[in-house]
């Protein structure tokens, strides 16, 4: 299917099914509400085929360009049908499974994620390992035909809802750095896993601590080869920093328009407004070019750090403007609309942290794109 045809027929389907697709909850909803809504929308879109286009046939997709699934994300977020943050997990984790999971595992699992039947999470960060990911220490040891995992992850988004986890473990010596890491696909229901949700600043238990106490994971759940986990991570992160953020741009555009709809003129600085708008359109242009590069078969790499810096700056700039233009609502309002603005404002503060901090993106740009050599 071509993009134009997909766009027209999807728009039409969304139009005709507004009544079933619209969230049941009022306002922004709780995280439970948002997760239920996400599963519902994914299920309906999967059954109607929309959610399958742009994914390979061997994992239950219908084939076609990745531009199709990019448009789906944009169409859903710009109609406020899904919360953009939790929607991106699919765009981050499914490509990794497709590239690294054994064929039959990918074929049986990816459809569960696409159809909204399951939620997956990404277990990378640990208490002592944030930016310095290669120092992770959650240990996996071979024991016959299983891995045995002991250790801890933290900031694991949606872990309390997740059926599976793409987990980075230490399988080499503790000094092995990026050569001793192995990626595993773990059932979150396995005995020995404990999840403790953590409340974020924006008032949502979005992420959790996850404890692993001698958890058995079959060897055939290894993603890539033993010791290849760093490559898995390095291939996953560019998706998290670029294509998975395409629909976020549509969301930011929508919210900036909502701000323009209601904010009093004297509270909006025209230069700041002009600058935010320029940044958002430039981000859209950059992000669009990235989508087309992937669609043409190019492999994503360190250049996605520019996309990520841009999206983080644009998001914070949009919500800085919200903080000024709707200051009273954000700070003092207790109605659902104010609550939403406040939560979004607060969440935007994390844009320069998750997916690799703003500083880490600049380190990557300096080293990989500008070839500035080692920073030591």
């Amino acid at each position, binding site marked *: 299917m071509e*993009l134009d045809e997909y766009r027209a027929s999807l728009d039409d389907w969304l139009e005709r099914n507004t009544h079933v697709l619209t969230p049941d909850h009022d306002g922004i909803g709780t995280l439970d509400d948002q997760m239920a809504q996400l599963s519902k929308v994914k299920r309906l879109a999967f059954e109607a085929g929309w959610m399958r286009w742009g994914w390979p046939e061997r994992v239950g997709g219908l084939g076609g360009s990745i531009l199709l699934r990019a448009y789906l994300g944009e169409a859903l977020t710009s109609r406020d049908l899904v919360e953009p943050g939790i929607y991106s997990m699919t765009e981050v984790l499914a490509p990794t499974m497709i590239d690294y999971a054994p064929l039959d595992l990918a074929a049986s699992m990816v459809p569960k994620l696409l159809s909204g039947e399951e939620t997956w999470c990404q277990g990378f960060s640990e208490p002592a390992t944030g930016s310095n990911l290669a120092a992770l220490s959650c240990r996996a040891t071979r024991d016959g035909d299983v891995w045995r995992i002991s250790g801890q992850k933290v900031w694991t988004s949606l872990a309390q809802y997740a059926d599976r986890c793409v987990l980075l473990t230490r399988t080499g010596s503790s000094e092995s750095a990026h050569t001793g890491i192995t990626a595993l696909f773990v059932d979150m229901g396995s005995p020995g896993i404990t999840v403790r949700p953590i409340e974020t600043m924006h008032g949502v238990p979005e992420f959790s601590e996850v404890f692993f106490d001698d958890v058995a994971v079959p060897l055939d759940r290894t993603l890539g080869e033993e010791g290849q986990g760093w490559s898995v991570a390095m291939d996953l992160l560019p998706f998290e920093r670029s294509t998975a953020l395409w629909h976020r741009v549509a969301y930011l555009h929508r919210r900036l328009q909502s701000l323009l709809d209601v904010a009093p003129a004297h509270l909006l600085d025209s230069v700041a407004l002009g600058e935010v708008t320029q940044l958002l*359109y*430039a981000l859209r242009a950059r992000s669009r070019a990235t989508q087309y590069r992937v669609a043409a078969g190019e492999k994503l790499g360190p250049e996605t750090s520019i996309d990520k810096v841009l999206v983080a700056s644009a998001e914070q700039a949009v919500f800085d403007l919200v903080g000024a233009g709707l200051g009273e609502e954000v700070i003092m309002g207790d109605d659902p609309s104010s609550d939403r603005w406040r939560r979004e404002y607060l969440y935007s503060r994390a844009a320069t942290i998750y997916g690799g901090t703003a500083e880490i993106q600049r380190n990557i740009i300096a080293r990989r794109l500008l070839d500035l050599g*080692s920073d030591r």
Partner: protein
Amino acid sequence: MDAADREIFKASLLHAVRGHTGSALDAALDDLGWHEALTLDAETAVSLLFEVQGTASASSSAIGEVLRFALGLDGHHKSDVVLPAFGRWETPGKIVDGSLSVRGLGIVSMGDRPRTLIAATVNDMVAVLDVMAADLVLRHVGGVDPRLGLVQVVGDGVPFNVLTELEPTGWSTAVGVSQLALGHELVGAARTMLELARQHALARIQFGKPISAFQSIRHRLADTLVGIETAESMLRAAWVDQSPVTAGMAKALAGRGARAAARHCQQVLAGIGFTTEHSFHHYVRRVFVLDQLFGTASALTGELGNQLLSSRQLMAMPPL
């Protein structure tokens, strides 16, 4: 132009801007068929030339040619074209009660030919006028960037002939195309500044290591690249989009990105970058002036903000 032709054309433009500047570059561009390219494939001709011109800090009359082309006046090759006044994007001419006053700029060839073309506002209309150069007061600008060949153009009660009247959107469209050209030139200049600073950072040793090892140096250069790529993305999108509003956004992003590049790279180059023995200062000067032509980043940004505040409606984003 296909990809192979583009590469060949780009190589010959690079050769031209490295070897020539000013009227010699005008002649070189004539020889290699840049004007024909402009009429056949404006995006390619403009983006390639202006980027390499910026890269080399060369100067030519090409911005006037772009304005002429965008005004639909290709046939009038034998006259110079007056650009808007310093920092502005309204027409350089204004007719009130039948009397023409001119406040504008020219570059390089201005005054070499007997006739000039001047866009002028008459009530709510824009007309393009034919004016004798001898009836204008021309001042060759030294200023911050003498190598640019800027000319200040002033006239009051100037005799004119009306050549043509423009469509209502004709002037803003022509401004948009000129802004894109300048945007590419700013990006080109910023890329050279970044490269000069990058090479210096790798070569300069302090505290026993190259200064490129210091994170504040690395982050400044990274931010410079982000600014450049941001502008570049917007410029590309604006060519597709063809709207004067997006062109103004692209020019603003390019101006802001290039000014930031100048600031960051100056700091990285430190003492040597502050001398006339190093080529860096040419770029600082050039970017300072180019940001002003057809509207500074801050003026264009404020204008966009004011428009949004009154319309309360964001433009649609470029479709996927």
